[in-house]
């Protein structure tokens, strides 16, 4: 105590002050880094959504203009008549189909020679000829008016182009040149006069067509093949139905008015429910998503139909039945499939699978399978098979996880009650993991809907609503998809054009579809967590 150099009373030191950067300790810096990364992901998603919508949303205004000019230039008016003409063409095609069947029956069942068969069909051909010619008056009108309407539309388009040209000149300050650009306004009323003036002519033509058709119906000859007679009766009925539409068409034409405004919702429904995707047409462009959506849906269903049993079955086998050697072999193999670039798969689809499927379809003894034989190498089936290959790893991995999450205790309890392995799998394991399996399937579906390269290469790319009326053989038709059309056309369209915006809208639709699928998958997974307890 007496010594002055005695040590000071020990202080209780917890630690020295931490070094700080920008007022943050190291821990806080690391936290900020992680937080920032998470934030970037959110921001990027928000930006993608925003720009997708911004580009896409303008489509509706442009499409409205598109529909407005369709009306202003009288294209809509002409299309009433054209529709009538096309309905008639469809009937003629039906007639031709009946002739083909009859001929086939005569030569193959009754063993007539070709000349003999044709001779027996002479009265039928005579009738078919008269029936086909019956539409001639309307057809003449349509082809005349088509030119007039197209001319009006061209005039309008040129006017719009010159307006843009002048604005561009003005915006760079070339006032003199801008003033020199002459804009010729289109006077729709006077331009449309020649079209609207044909109404009396149309009325006459329609009466003639009706008379012609009724006359030919009255003289309809009996078919040489009796068993095909029901088809002819059906044809008569179809013709009567067709004639019944005449007054409706006429009425629509009488009240038609080019000044009637096009509401904005027409532009929306025209996109969502439009049954035609027709671009760069000389007549009128249509942007309807239905054929693309139907194509995507058809291919996805085919893919899931194949991939679900494969993926779920393999998951059950690997998790519950396989020995560890088999597990070590199967799991990496299936997971490796997802490593194959989809363009390589598409290439394989074109070169091998499409070829092989067509060859198989043409085997005589397999003709009973619906849709066989088919001649299109690239169709929904080929693309669906390949997409199944892409979906299998997703479904397999997630379903295997779900099955693996079923507590071992359930399995043991089931075995202890004297259940066989199959009973345990089917009655305990699968029900307990069902929601996990379903969400695996949904995520597989998301994968399939979003896949682009394979469908672009293998789906056949015919923009048409698949004909579901033919039953199962619909799967052998070529289709186009939402993803495929974006990939195919985006590179060729001028930026900012209506076509460009329409493709964006297809993207938005895909975005919503994926969102919906993921939403349901997550909802199911949440339920699944609770059910295991």
């Amino acid at each position, binding site marked *: 105590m007496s010594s002055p150099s005695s040590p000071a009373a020990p202080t209780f030191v917890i630690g020295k002050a931490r070094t700080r950067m920008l007022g943050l300790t190291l821990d806080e810096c690391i936290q900020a880094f992680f937080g920032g990364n998470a934030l970037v992901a959110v921001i990027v998603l928000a930006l993608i959504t925003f720009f997708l919508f911004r580009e896409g949303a303008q489509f509706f205004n442009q499409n409205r203009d598109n529909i407005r000019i369709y009306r202003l230039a009288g294209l809509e008016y002409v299309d009433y008549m054209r529709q009538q003409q096309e309905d008639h063409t469809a009937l003629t095609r039906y007639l031709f189909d009946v002739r083909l069947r009859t001929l086939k029956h005569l030569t193959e069942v009754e063993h007539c020679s070709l000349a003999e068969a044709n001779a027996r069909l002479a009265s039928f051909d005579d009738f078919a000829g008269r029936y086909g010619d019956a539409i001639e008056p309307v057809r003449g009108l349509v082809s005349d008016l088509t030119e007039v309407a197209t001319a009006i539309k061209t005039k309008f388009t040129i006017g719009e182009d010159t307006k843009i040209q002048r604005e561009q000149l003005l915006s760079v300050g070339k006032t003199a040149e801008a003033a020199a650009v002459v804009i010729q306004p289109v006077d729709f009323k006077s331009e449309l006069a020649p079209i609207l003036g044909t109404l009396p002519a149309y009325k006459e033509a329609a009466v003639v067509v009706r008379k012609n058709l009724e006359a030919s119906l009255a003289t309809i000859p009996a078919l040489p093949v009796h068993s095909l007679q029901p088809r002819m009766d059906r044809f008569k009925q179809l013709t009567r139905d067709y004639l019944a539409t005449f007054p409706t068409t006429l009425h629509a034409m009488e009240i038609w008015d080019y000044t009637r405004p096009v509401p904005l919702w027409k532009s929306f429904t025209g996109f969502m429910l439009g049954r035609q995707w027709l671009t760069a047409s000389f007549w009128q462009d249509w942007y309807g998503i239905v054929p693309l959506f139907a194509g995507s849906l058809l291919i996805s269903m085919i893919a899931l139909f194949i991939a679900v049993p494969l993926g779920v079955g393999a998951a059950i086998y690997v998790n519950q039945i396989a020995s560890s050697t088999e597990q070590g072999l199967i799991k990496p193999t299936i997971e490796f499939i997802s490593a194959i670039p989809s363009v390589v798969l598409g290439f394989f689809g074109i070169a091998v699978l499409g070829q092989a499927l067509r060859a198989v379809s043409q085997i005589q003894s397999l003709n009973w399978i619906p849709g066989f034989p088919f001649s299109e190498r690239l169709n929904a089936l080929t693309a669906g098979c390949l997409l199944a290959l892409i979906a299998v790893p997703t479904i397999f991995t997630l379903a295997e996880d779900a099955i693996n999450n079923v507590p071992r205790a359930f399995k043991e309890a089931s075995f202890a009650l*004297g259940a066989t392995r199959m009973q345990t799998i089917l009655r305990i394991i699968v029900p307990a993991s069902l929601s996990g399996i379903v969400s695996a399937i949904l995520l597989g579906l998301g994968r399939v809907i979003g896949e682009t390269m394979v469908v672009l290469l293998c789906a056949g790319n015919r923009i048409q609503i698949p004909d579901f009326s033919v039953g199962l053989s619909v799967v052998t038709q070529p289709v186009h998809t939402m993803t495929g059309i974006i990939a195919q056309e985006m590179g060729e369209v001028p930026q900012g054009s209506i076509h460009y915006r329409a493709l964006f809208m297809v993207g938005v639709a895909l975005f919503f579809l994926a969102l919906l699928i993921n939403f349901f998958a997550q909802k199911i997974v949440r339920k699944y967590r609770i059910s295991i307890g």
Partner: protein
Amino acid sequence: MVTVTPSPSLTSTAAPMETPAAPTKFSVTVPPASAAKSGVATTLINIENFDFYYGAKQALFDINLKLDDKRVTAFIGPSGCGKSTLLRCLNRMNDLIDGTSIKRGSISIRDVDIYGRDVDAIELRKRVGMVFQKSNPFPKSIYENITYGLRIQGVKTKSRLDEVVEKSLRGAALWDEVKDRLHESGLGLSGGQQQRLCIARTIAVEPEVILMDEPCSALDPIATSKVEELIHELKKQFTIIIVTHSMQQAARCSDKTAFFYMGKLIEYDDTRNIFMNPANPQTEAYVSGRFG
């Protein structure tokens, strides 16, 4: 209640009960009720020179044990001593684990070798039920849980299933608690109720033997005492083998106790003798709490 280690003569009297015509099924002949009442137990399960391996590691060494019919036998011993392994050998649950093997010895129930070539493990497990350490009702309704064992055997009649559900739940002393919510999930019950549901599920298939693998280790004392009361009731009808870490539980519920240590059977005797007057010093050390 005092029984001596079954003599060879007792074993041989059990032999004629076996039906040689149906070796895959156990004889359903129940030993005379008088035998159980009079306190003379017959041997049901006979384990002889039994060696068991997990891969290359030997888990059981030369086990010789005769387990009595309609009695409660407790297996005690420190963790890892092989008592659960032996229990799971009795209904061949170890078959489900890869790499297990029996190098020597046999287990027979009513003189049928359960590891015999023509014994179906599925049939065996219908006769030898099991209740696990952690209650594991299926994520199904209470009704579905109980009827599962019958449904997989193909029983579909509604009236028969209803009857079994009531009988089993009454047997497991659970009926009054759940009779109004039979179609609610079994996972909604409390831990003790879940364990009794698992017992009800096991007795629904009417086995002869019920194996219990530490059935009360996850339960609170009240639930434990309910299960123990249940064991007392069940032994009138079933042969029960219970693995437990609780010495008190073994003393309370069992008629005979087997003490295992390091994969070997150290001592097997009447429960009273094991706890009051053990022959082996290791047993004494364990039951008095000096190790383990």
